[in-house]
């Protein structure tokens, strides 16, 4: 297989990455190099083999579905929003969404 310029543009769109035409061209070459390495997997017979997601095949533990922390006085909110590029009155500010 070989990725085309159009496909790389589509992937970049899905990944929410802005790419310039020059970057698309370089990425296309580099990704095709990496996929030529990955192609080796195609030839492997994996019939009847279960996919392995965790080394011990452990399942994700779930905790009880309940509130574990109440930010009564907004301290935690203020702390977390102090990390935001733009926040005001407890809200995250973003550029306009609709015209």
């Amino acid at each position, binding site marked *: 297989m070989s990725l085309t310029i159009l496909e790389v543009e589509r992937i970049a769109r899905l990944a*929410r990455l802005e790419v310039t035409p020059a970057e698309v061209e370089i990425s296309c070459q580099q*990704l095709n190099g*990496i996929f030529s390495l990955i192609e080796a997997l*195609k030839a492997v017979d994996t019939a009847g083999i279960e996919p392995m997601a*965790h080394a*011990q095949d452990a399942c994700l533990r779930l905790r009880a579905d309940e509130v574990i922390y109440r930010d009564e006085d907004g301290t935690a909110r203020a702390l977390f929003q102090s990390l935001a*590029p733009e926040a005001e009155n407890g809200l995250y500010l*973003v550029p306009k969404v609709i015209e």
Partner: protein
Amino acid sequence: MIHSDLKTLSRALKEKQISSVELARLFLERIARLNPELNAFITVDEEKTLVAAKAADLRLASGSAGMLTGIPLAQKDLFCAQGWRTTCGSKMLENFVSPYDAAVVTKLEHEAGMVSLGKVNMDEFAMGSSNETSWFGAVKNPWDKTCVSGGSSGGSAAAVAAYLAPVATGSDSGGSIRQPAAFCGLSGIKPTYGVVSRYGMVAFASSLDQGGVIAHSAEDCAFVLAAMAGFDERDSTSLERPPEDYSRLLGQPLQGLKIGLPQEFFGAGANAEVVAAVLSAVEEYKRLGAKIVDVTLPNSHLSVPVYYVIAPAEASSNLSRFDGLRYGYRAPDCNDLREAYTKSRAQGFGAEVKRRILIGTYVLSHGYYDAYYLKAQRVRRLIADDFRRAFQKCDVILGPTSPTTAFKIGERSADLVALYLSDIYTIAVNLAGLPGLSIPCGFDSNGLPIGLQLIGNYFAEARLLNVAHRYQEATDWHTRRPQEFCGEF
């Protein structure tokens, strides 16, 4: 004092030969003087370090100190530490001051009482094998400053090798502890997946990422690993196991130990000097009473292709949280919400990270998920099964950590596939979730350290550390120091 092992430092602190504040100052002074040449540290905060050292001194005075209380360490900059800038080597997190502590930070600093000297450099989001992808620049190898330190825990390795810290934390998703340890002449262990909590460790490839230690000896690794490991309900993949003393087997004889040599790790790809040094270590193990058996890992050549599907897939998913809105970098002058995402991510991530996000997005996209992601997970099981079979014949597996010694900075940045293939001996261990460690076993003709990898069965860390420790009792490779940084005392 700066060249002492952790046992000696611990004794000196308890016997009041030195205080934790004095010890921290010794290392802080070296960092201030030598770090500009190496670029190992991203963030140093003397005030914070000295506050922690004073607290450790109080514990030492009150008799409530543990073995590691008051001993300084360097934290890889992907462990969130409250009030410390935690960058993960990325422009995206250049100004991110963590509001909470990673489990590893809680355990090592707050519980064991170790004193953080600062946050050390790494490949951006731990994606790299040379520390060259860091937004904060490449780390230089203390053995030869024109060479890479290895990666992604390159800052950890360079800091310990140059005695800027007695020990450092690291993380390893495809060799990121073992390979830099090998390149810098150090000992480094990646435990069984699930042993060290990933809570607060910035995520790269969640099914592979595992925290560990880089130190001067296997013995030092054992002490620190014991303090950082343990079940944590906040990490959904943490394994529920009782705490372990990883130093409990140190000193046991190796008589009758069966060491497996996989033919695949000694093939054409490995440098002749590396192979020769590893084979002389095998001779040393025979003298120590070990038996050598041949084993085979027939699918190990597939580990790099499998890794470059699974790791980018998980990375693209993990890194989707960086949206330029809640924390991290936001591009200036965005006209709408979509641009806030696409421009912030384009400007905040480096080239290697973006490449892996693109690969991951593609292999998880509609129509390709089965062909790539599920296929890779199936082959991953074949690779793990190879190890299962091999461990029916032997107790530990031995081979080189890396096919070569440290390469020149810039040398491999043009050929991505060649750079990826250089992790061929370490990646399979992460895919199987096994514990692995690297110890020094010699030098090449350029005076660069050679690393020996030992792989154990699941939860065999204590045994693995003893196998390394016995070798270090019989040899002195781990005591060699890079002259330029360690001439003086």
